[in-house]
């Protein structure tokens, strides 16, 4: 069971095998409340599978995941989300046929049962929350535009806002700056940094400059297991890390 009471999330000896191929191999990882953690690794290191295991999309062949002291194994995706795990996908996944406001409504609405959704109007404090979120991502003027008409960067930010609207205790953010301009990348890094403390955030990316800017602890994944953990400086001077990742030209 979970011994460390400070930890919000702990993965213990997680292995995932896809028809014999080990996507994750005996992975151990522990996150404290309010921590910002970056996870990097070469392609195929198991970064996305790692998120899939936490969010319930993939069942590990071995090991256990504890979140707030509860095991997440065997729980359905929406149940895990309701426990307080929010996930942002690699490419921005917003509902393109809905407006910015409707997208945010879906994320802030609680309770999420169909009967509540069909019978009741959205609550006032939830509307306030939407307004607040739209200010955070600077889309107040686009409140009624279709999300599909937004630029790539705006979609990324809308998805982050949707994540915030869920009020998760743990935010899993997969490549938030893919396809963003340098300026947008910097803004995103600042936003994520400002979120940690109140929220526990895991950021996955391979953009080194971005990770450096996050100024957080970094876990390096390689071949499905944690190779090394520490600050960016420790990581960059680690022989093993240089061998598998930093030394090679980026893909």
């Amino acid at each position: 069971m979970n011994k460390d009471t400070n930890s919000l999330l702990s993965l213990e000896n997680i292995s995932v095998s896809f028809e014999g191929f080990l996507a994750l191999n005996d992975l151990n990882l522990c996150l404290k409340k309010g921590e910002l953690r970056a996870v990097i690794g070469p392609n195929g290191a198991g970064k996305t599978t790692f998120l899939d295991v936490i969010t319930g999309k993939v069942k590990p062949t071995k090991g256990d995941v504890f979140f707030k002291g509860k095991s997440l194994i065997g729980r359905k995706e929406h149940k895990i989300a309701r426990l307080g795990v929010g996930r942002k996908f690699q490419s921005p996944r917003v509902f393109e046929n809905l407006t910015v406001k409707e997208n945010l409504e879906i994320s802030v609405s609680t309770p999420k049962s169909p009967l509540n959704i069909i019978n009741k109007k959205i609550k006032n404090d939830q509307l306030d929350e939407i307004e607040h979120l739209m200010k955070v991502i600077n889309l107040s003027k686009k409140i009624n535009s279709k999300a599909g008409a937004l630029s790539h960067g705006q979609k990324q930010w809308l998805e982050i806002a949707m994540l915030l609207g869920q009020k998760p205790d743990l935010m899993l953010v997969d490549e938030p700056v893919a396809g963003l301009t340098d300026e947008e990348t910097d803004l995103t890094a600042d936003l994520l940094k400002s979120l940690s403390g109140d929220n526990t955030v895991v950021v996955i990316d391979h953009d080194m400059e971005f990770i450096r800017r996050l100024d957080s602890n970094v876990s390096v994944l390689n071949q499905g297991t944690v190779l090394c953990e520490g600050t960016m400086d420790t990581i960059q001077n680690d022989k093993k890390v240089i061998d598998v990742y930093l030394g090679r030209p980026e893909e």
Partner: protein
Amino acid sequence: MEFRNLKLTKKTTFVIWVLIIAFIIAAPSILPVFRLNLLGRYLSLAIVALGVDLIWGFTGLLSLGQGIFFALGGYCAAMYLQITSSSEFPNNIPEFFGLYGVDNLPFFWEPFRSPIFSLFAIWVIPALVAGILGFLVFRNRIKGVYFSILTQAALLVFFNFFNGQQKLINGTNGLKTDVTQLFGQMVGSESIQRMFFWFTALLVIAAWFFSKWVVKGRFGNILIGIRDDEPRVRFTGYNPVLFKTIIFSIAGGLAGISGALYTVQSGIVSPQFMTVPFSIEMVIWVAVGGRGTLLGAILGAVLINYAKSLVSEALPASWMFIQGGLFILVVTALPEGVLGWVQGEGPRNLLQRLGLKRKIETYPSLEIKNETEGLKNE
């Protein structure tokens, strides 16, 4: 399949409704009895089409088995009419039982002596069957083409079962309703049929309001979310299985009401309601009318069927070609259906091609100012 979401403007919806209602009110005085009866039948088909639009146009579930629920509603109505009109037959049971030497009424016929039970059964039974079937399918995350195939397979199972049950429901011959009695009159009589016409027209409007209520607001947005990106809905904390089961069940209930109204106006219900082509046609009505518009489903169902009967009278055997051609036309040229075409850039483009309208030289909808402000102000 790419879905674009069409929201008909209030004005268009209003104009179309005024036309529909004006036509419905005028119809009994301008149409001969035969045509009025046909129109009534096609209006009842509009209700099943609304259900198809809810599950396909909004939620992305392409069901090819709506005929099951349609037929169930029809059988419920026919069983009520038969059992309550059987007093002069031997054993006080419907006449057809005599053909197969059945003396005792099968147990499941008994509750249909009650008009209240029957009125509920018409929509509750199809909705329950749809709900149970849907829950089992959706829980196992069967979707897309597999869902369509499965619904069609279910349709065939029901078709074959109903076809073979002579001793229970008169098998392939079906149950006739036109010679039964309602309010002391023959169901097939002109006055009763005229009443059914009005009743159907009212129910179409009620079904439209109901469907509109279902898809407006957050519930409808979540259905659209499920259609466009189901995993995203899941990770936001919603259980798509429940949402899909509910909407499939609603569509089943609508199909049942539709089937009952169709049965009493055509005079018979039979396993023919569960043939494969008929259920596919329901999808075509919605595709041609414009999926995701609700109103398009109504127009598609009524107009295509009306055209079908007119064409079939003039040129027998040519309708299948026309219907096929219509479907191909919609898929290739009008992917959003006729209403989508009218609502979008369609008429303008057509006028341009005919040289009746000047081309627009700029993009009036582009908001140059807002585009650049975006994130930078943060």
